[in-house]
């Protein structure tokens, strides 16, 4: 029971963190500078973004739930089971972020979801 509660907390916080991250990274725009000075500048800009900070907060909750989950379950269960987020995120990417999820992506995401269900058995 504890494992499922941890998994639920991990999935919910990952979905929230990913959505916020995607919205804010798109708003920031494509990252083109990968030299140390450029990376430091980008990190400085991103560190002042309150929604990204909130995204990282959700990811931290997800991480500690995952860490605790690993104490008692297999890596080959914990990691695939976390992909339950994929189904929610693909739907929310379409509904909230207005991304055009074409037929091939839907089929691919469904296959991944079915695969994850089998992996978790």
């Amino acid at each position, binding site marked *: 029971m504890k494992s499922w509660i941890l998994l639920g907390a991990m999935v919910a916080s990952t979905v929230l963190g*990913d*959505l916020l*991250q*995607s919205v804010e*990274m*798109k708003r*920031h*725009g*494509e*990252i083109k500078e990968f030299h140390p000075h450029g990376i430091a500048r980008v990190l400085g800009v*991103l560190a002042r973004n309150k929604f990204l900070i909130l995204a990282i907060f959700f*990811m931290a909750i997800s*991480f*500690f739930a*995952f*860490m*605790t989950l*690993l*104490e008692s379950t*297999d*890596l*080959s269960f*914990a*990691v*695939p089971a976390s*992909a339950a*987020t*994929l189904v929610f*995120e*693909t739907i929310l*990417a*379409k509904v909230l*972020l207005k*991304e*055009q*999820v*074409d037929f*091939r*992506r839907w*089929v*691919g*995401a*469904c*296959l*991944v*979801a*079915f*695969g*994850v*269900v*089998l*992996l*978790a*058995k």
Partner: protein
Amino acid sequence: MHSERLRWKTRVFAIIVILSNALGNFALAYGMRGRTTSTVFDYLRVIFTPWVAIGITLLILWLLSRMALMSWADLSYVLPVTSLGYVANAVMGRLFLNEVITPARWAGTLLIVAGTMMVGIGSPHSKGDA
């Protein structure tokens, strides 16, 4: 030309995301095995043990590279493509942590690979210049 450069950049970052996730999770699982953390102090103590620290470092690399990838690629592209990491984690669990992987789990692995390939051969953009 710009589109081709973006395609390569996307592939390179997808590989970094997948590898850092798989290796980071493995190190974390190895370090957390058999432990019991119940207080904040337990977590603080365990964070500084070598395997967990390596795991966290790699997962920070994973987070940053994934954030960079998301700055130009759709969430609905990034998520399924990087889900190859799930397969890598299952394989590492089997090989290095002696976990038992049932036929159903291997079948799931193949489905994930198939789904990932279907998504990966598409464009990382749903709108814009790709």
